[in-house]
């Protein structure tokens, strides 16, 4: 069971990682009031993961990106009540410390829980539901994205970067309330998305990648770890997929996310499988 899950995760990752340029024709979609469609347009994207150049740590490249098609994404996070229906169906793990109020966003979910919910939604509706990739999340989050290039670790004196990173993390604004707030409490962004960068961080489907930057500027993946996923919110971070409470970070953590939740992307089932993979096309920058 665990093995099967791993293989599946790796396959998903492989597909997501391969850049495919697409031309997309507009298709009719099932209407859901919680879904916002955002037309593709170029955006700035700082690659996620760990980068090196000539064996030395390098800053994550900032690229001009373009999704291959418009994206249909929930304008709010999945609520506790919605998740509870999946749990009642026996398709999502029951979470003991789940949010008390059904109409508020679900928190305390792992990537695995969120993925189980997406699969349940897919089966129930016949429309593919999945977590967004990091690129999709950044695109949809728009102005709410905090592009935070943390100082680089210099192998000759790694401590300076640790101290600078520690201070940067310590200086991050912390959300006033840690409990889930009513939907919309953290405002709406220019794409109509609610509560982006509030007190809930959101799981993405993107795996943790270690990459080498080639002289051409291309990023070559040297290690893919799909046991760790990119988590997005007031800052970007990386979390092991079974973690539900990000605050149990202790020793090295400066400022971990307050809560883990998620929102989903929907795709039309009658698209060919490959066309469903929305990818960013990168130009070296």
């Amino acid at each position, binding site marked *: 069971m665990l093995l099967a899950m791993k293989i599946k995760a790796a396959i998903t990752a492989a597909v997501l990682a391969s850049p495919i340029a697409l031309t997309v024709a507009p298709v009719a979609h099932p209407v859901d009031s919680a879904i916002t469609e955002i037309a593709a347009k170029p955006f700035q994207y700082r690659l996620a993961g760990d980068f*090196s150049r000539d*064996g*030395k*740590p390098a800053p994550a490249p900032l690229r001009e990106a373009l999704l291959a098609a418009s994206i249909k994404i929930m304008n709010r996070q999945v609520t506790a009540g919605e998740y509870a229906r999946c749990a009642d169906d026996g398709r999502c793990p029951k979470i*003991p*410390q789940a949010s*008390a109020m059904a109409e508020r966003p679900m928190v305390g979910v792992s990537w695995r829980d969120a993925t189980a919910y997406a699969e349940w939604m897919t089966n129930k509706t016949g429309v593919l539901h999945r977590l967004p990739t990091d690129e999709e999340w950044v695109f949809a989050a728009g102005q709410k994205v905090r592009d935070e290039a943390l100082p680089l670790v210099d*192998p*000759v*004196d*790694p*401590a*300076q970067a*640790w*101290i600078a990173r*520690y*201070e940067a*993390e*310590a*200086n991050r604004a*912390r959300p006033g*309330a*840690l*409990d889930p707030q009513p939907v919309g409490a953290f405002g709406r962004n220019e794409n109509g998305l609610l509560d982006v960068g509030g007190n809930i961080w959101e799981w993405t489907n993107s795996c943790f990648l*270690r990459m080498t930057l080639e002289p051409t500027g291309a990023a070559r993946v*040297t*290690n893919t770890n799909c046991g760790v996923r990119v988590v997005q919110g007031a800052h970007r971070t990386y979390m092991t997929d079974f973690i539900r409470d990000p*605050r*149990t*970070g*202790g*020793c*090295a953590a*400066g*400022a971990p996310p*307050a809560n883990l939740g998620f929102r989903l992307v929907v795709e039309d089932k009658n698209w060919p499988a490959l066309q469903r993979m929305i990818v960013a096309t990168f130009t070296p920058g």
Partner: protein
Amino acid sequence: MITRRIALLGVAVAALVVAVPALAADDLNLPRQAVALVAPPFVHPHEQATKEGPKIIEFKLVITEKEVVIDEAGTKFQAMTFNGSMPGPLMVVHEGDYVEVTLVNPETNAMPHNIDFHAATGALGGGALTHVNPGEQVVLRWKATRTGTFIYHCAPEGMIPWHVVSGMHGTVMVLPRDGLKNREGKALRYDRLYYVGENDLYVPKDEKGKYKSYETVGESFADTTEVMRKLIPTHVVFNGKVGALTGKNAMTSKVGETVMIVHSQANRDSRPHLIGGHGDYVWETGKFVNPPEKDLETWFIRGGSAGAALYTFRQPGIYAYVNHNLIEAVELGATAHFKVEGKWNNDLMKQVQPPGPILPGKSSAADAVVKTR
């Protein structure tokens, strides 16, 4: 539940039993020095060694019952404190000095309190002579006859553990008059001192598993006692709160600087460890007449004692100072950080090869086996 009324009834009884003249004429012909206490992790200015003769050192402790927040989730806790901090302040004197403490229990409190100094001799460490009801104060003087770091704590009959795990402990450090020494008798000094007081907290939960909060400290008593009796703390914290000594409040130092860390735990065993560093000289039991142990990785603080460790930082960066029961450190809160400035020493540590693909034929265990055949 202890109401104000019951507390006041106790006044009359206490007054009869403890018939001590409140302010007797001073029978000691010694110079006096009043010291203003400082909230942990800091300590009031003091000499590490002194050429002066013994003095009467005056301290004032004001007991404050108050609601505090003990974690980042905002869990509220009915605390009882000396001078408003958990732990109470560190008091530093020298061997032969007289410690004269004015213990004030303001009218605004609900509970009687007292103080037991582990460094003092007789009368339950002063506990039997210091019962004060709300609206009272008491002055106790005791002679510092032994050197070392010693706990003080509140110790009212029948409720000692509850007062202690509600925050009422601190530390007295009695320094040798000629300062600290190593095993060979060479003087040891510190550039900075940090006082880390550890508290185990027992916060009751409701049926849904949420932490309960109470209007007053008295109302929390029954439920808290029930949790205490199971001996499993819900929080183990340094300086009164999860994260009180991390981030912007991380302790600081620099390479080449010698730091003394005084660590107290009034109720439960702890095992401090500096991740990435050591204890150069450690008085594990905190008593300076015994030579310090050297080069420790982790030291043991017995519940009901305070210990002291000296360390000279040799490498810059972020250090975690933890209770090395790592479940308590990471899950329950017993983690502090040091931020140390300075220049990295590649001789002490160097990343020879950054993380990368596993290369065949290069320094892997499997290859080593092949080569030896």
